[in-house]
């Protein structure tokens, strides 16, 4: 059977593998609104990794900043300028 430490590290490793998928889609996507949504998914997975690394202060800063403020400000920027990246 797995010990408790191995279970915890397994969950963290799975979260970082999923974050690689989210970052790849965020960089390669042409529609900018979908790229912002993938960036928010990556930030949620990073917040979970920070919680597993025993840093509760960082989780309390990171969730409003990276899941709330960044996507909202970049969405306002997109709605005032272009929505799709060309070529």
């Amino acid at each position, binding site marked *: 059977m797995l010990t408790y430490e191995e279970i915890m590290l397994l969950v963290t490793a799975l979260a970082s593998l999923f974050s690689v*998928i989210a970052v790849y889609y965020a960089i390669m996507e042409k529609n900018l609104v979908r790229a912002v949504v993938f960036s928010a998914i990556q930030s949620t997975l990073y917040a979970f990794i920070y919680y597993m690394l025993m840093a509760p202060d960082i*989780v309390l*800063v990171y969730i409003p900043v990276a899941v709330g*403020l960044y996507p*909202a400000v970049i969405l306002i920027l997109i709605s005032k300028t272009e929505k799709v990246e060309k070529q």
Partner: protein
Amino acid sequence: MRHILGIIIILLFIIGFSLVLTIAGNYILPSQEIRSLAKYYLYLAYNPWHRNFTVMSPEAVTSIVWDFRGLDTVFETAVFYLAIIGSIALGRGILKYSKPEGELGLSLIVKTVTKISAVMIIAVAASIALHGHLTPGGGFQGGATAAVAPLLILIIFSHYYLLEKGVTKDLMLFLRSLGLTGIGIVAIIVYLIALPQGIHAYVLQNQPKPDSSIGLPAYINGQLISGTLWFFNIFEFFAVMAGFTIVFLLITIPERAFKKEGEGEKQ
């Protein structure tokens, strides 16, 4: 569909490369011991038996941010201040704009839900900022959480709603200056108290030190406030919240206020 191949290649690369490194490599990983500097900080964060060296706050990260490494936080506040000043300078020279006719903002259901949740967000943020010296929390955390509420109101209602309620750029500038002045005063308050009595004291001092026997009280009426940490957290909360609200007010000004005269519409 062609993205799937790239993703599979990257994941296989990670899994295989880690296996090779684990078998054949000898490199730095987190170990079971931490540095001796970290052990000193953890030992001296709350230690009533070494009264001249401790911070009297059971939260080690807040005691590092505002007491052991207080000068770093002062310079970080200065950098944040300069970024806000730069953003305000880019928003000058706008024409007057008036409120258009009709119903503004999103639908009625969203407006009703926002009225409840914006008040709850500010209450939770104030709670996070006030107990930052006992449990995880503090000034930055509370200020960033409280900045989400004006952003919600700006997007769902409209820019004009917030201006009608009295939350203008000048009021937020005044609140931010109040917060920064508060931080500056609390940083030198022990020095000012010790000056008429002729006792030697330092700037950014919190508790009594070995060669300066004056400091702010750690307990008031049985409640733990850890000296200057509680006041720092409150003033930082106001400064960060007001700074972010200024930036959001400037970024949602409608585009027609920026057109110069004589420039026609794009056909």
